[in-house]
C-alpha cells in the first residue's frame, strides 16, 4: 500500500529514516543537547543533509520526570514545527506526543505525523490526526500509563499482544477518519516491555509486517540493547544496528533513529541482500 504521511507519499518499497529531534532538557541519549530551539533547528538541518526523510520532534522525554503539562509541551514544539515546516517544505514532520490537544496544535502548525509512543492513552488523538490530515503511529505499550517504566509486566505472547493492540488502534484510527494509507504500527521496544519482550518482538517482527500495516521500529540506543550487551548509553550503536538489520530483513519500513547515516547504510545493505533493492553501483566482475 502507498504510504501517505500528511503532505507526502512514498512507494510500497520505500524505507524511511525518522530522525529524533528532542526539544527537551533531559532526554536519555542527548541529555538536552538540542533543548535550545536553535540547537534543535541545527539538528534538523543536519539530519536533512544526512538524508532523513522524517524528523520526529518531541517535547517530553519518555522516562519519568518533572510533570510537563499540555501548555508547556505546546510551547516547546508548536512554534518549532512551524519554523521547520517553513524551512523544509519537503520534510515529513512528525511530533512525538500522546495528547490530542498538542496533536491538534502541531497539525495546524504543519505537522504530518502524530507519533503516539504511548499506545492511545488519549483516545481523542485519532480525532486530532483525522482532523489535521495527519498520519498516526499506533504503538503497543501493554496499556501502561505514559512516562512510566515497565514493572513485572507479563504477556502470554508479547507479539500476539502487540499485533492485537496495534491493529485495534489502527482500526480505531481509520474509523475516526484517518486514511488507511496513513496508519503505521510500532511494537514499541522497551515501552511496557522488559528486555526479553523487546528481543522477542525483534525476532518475530515479520509477524507484525504480515498484518499489512507499515511497521515502524524505534530501537535506537534503547535499554534492551544496553542490557543485552551490558553497555551504557553512548556505546550501543553496534547493538542498535544489529537489531536494525534483523528488523530490516523482516520488512520494517520506518526507523526512528539518533544516527541517520549508519542506520540508512544498515537498512540499505540488508534490503539489498534481501533482493528488495539493487546495489547503488555495481561493476565488480561485470566489466
Amino acid at each position, binding site marked *: 500500500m502507498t504510504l501517505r504521511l500528511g503532505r507526502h507519499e512514498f512507494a510500497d518499497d520505500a524505507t524511511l529514516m525518522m530522525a529524533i529531534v528532542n526539544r527537551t532538557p533531559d532526554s536519555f541519549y542527548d541529555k538536552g543537547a538540542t533543548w535550545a530551539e536553535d540547537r534543535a533547528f541545527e539538528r534538523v538541518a543536519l539530519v536533512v543533509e544526512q538524508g532523513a526523510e522524517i524528523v520526529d520532534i518531541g517535547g517530553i522525554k519518555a522516562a519519568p520526570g518533572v510533570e510537563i503539562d499540555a501548555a508547556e509541551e505546546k510551547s516547546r514544539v508548536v512554534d518549532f514545527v512551524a519554523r521547520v515546516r517553513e524551512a523544509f517544505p519537503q520534510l515529513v514532520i512528525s511530533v512525538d506526543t500522546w495528547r490530542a490537544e498538542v496533536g491538534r496544535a502541531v497539525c495546524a502548525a504543519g505537522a504530518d505525523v502524530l507519533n503516539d509512543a504511548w499506545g492511545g492513552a488519549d483516545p481523542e488523538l485519532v480525532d486530532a490526526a483525522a482532523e489535521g490530515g495527519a498520519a498516526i503511529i499506533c504503538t503497543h505499550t501493554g496499556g501502561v500509563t505514559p512516562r512510566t517504566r515497565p514493572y513485572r509486566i507479563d504477556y502470554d505472547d508479547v507479539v500476539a499482544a502487540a499485533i492485537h493492540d496495534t491493529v485495534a488502534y489502527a482500526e480505531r484510527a481509520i474509523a475516526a477518519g484517518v486514511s488507511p494509507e496513513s496508519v503505521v504500527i510500532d511494537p514499541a521496544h522497551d515501552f511496557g516491555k522488559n528486555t526479553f519482550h523487546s528481543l522477542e518482538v525483534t525476532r518475530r517482527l515479520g509477524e507484525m509486517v504480515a498484518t499489512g500495516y507499515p511497521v515502524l521500529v524505534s530501537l535506537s540506543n534503547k535499554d534492551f540493547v544496553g542490557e543485552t550487551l551490558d553497555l551504557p548509553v553512548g556505546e550501543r550503536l553496534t547493538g542498535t544496528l544489529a537489531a536494525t538489520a534483523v528488523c530490516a530483513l523482516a520488512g520494517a519500513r520506518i526507523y526512528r533513529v539518533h544516527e541517520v547515516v549508519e542506520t540508512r547504510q544498515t537498512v540499505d545493505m540488508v534490503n539489498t541482500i534481501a533482493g528488495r533493492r539493487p546495489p*547503488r553501483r555495481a561493476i565488480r566482475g561485470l*566489466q
Partner: protein
Amino acid sequence: MPGVFALLPEYAGLEDPVAGLRAACLDAVAWLGRDVRVLADAQGRRVADHLVGCIGDAVDEPSYLVVGNGSAKRSEKAPGHLDERAHAFDEALGASLRAGRPEVDAALAHELWASVEGIARMRDLGDLGTAQVDYDDDPFGVQYWVMRWEW
C-alpha cells in the same frame, strides 16, 4: 561491441556504471537490420540477445552483431591486474578493427583476458572497410569498442 555483463538487466544497480557504453551499444544495435546474426562466445551472446531485444523497429537488411573486447589487464585495478603487453595488444587489435580486417593473436588474447571469439570469426565476412568508431575507452581497465561497418 563488448560483452559487458553490466549491460544486462539482472545486474542493474540504482546507477548505471556503463551508461555511455550502453548508449553507444543501443545506438549501434538499433542501426542493425532485423535479421541479426550474432558472432560471439556464449557470454557475449547473452549480452547481444538482451540488447537486440531492447530494439523495436529495424530495417530488413541482414546484419551481424559481433561481441568481443580487448584486454582486461590494462591497469592495476583491472579485473586481471596490469599486464605490460595489454596496451600494445589492444592498439594492434583496435587498428585492425578500424581497418575492417581484424587480426587476432588468439594465444596472447587468452593470456590478456581479451574476448575475441566473435572478432576472430569476422574474417569470414571479408574486407569490411573502414569502421565508424562510436566508443573507444577502458573505464575499468578493460578495452571496449563500439564500431560499425557497412559494406
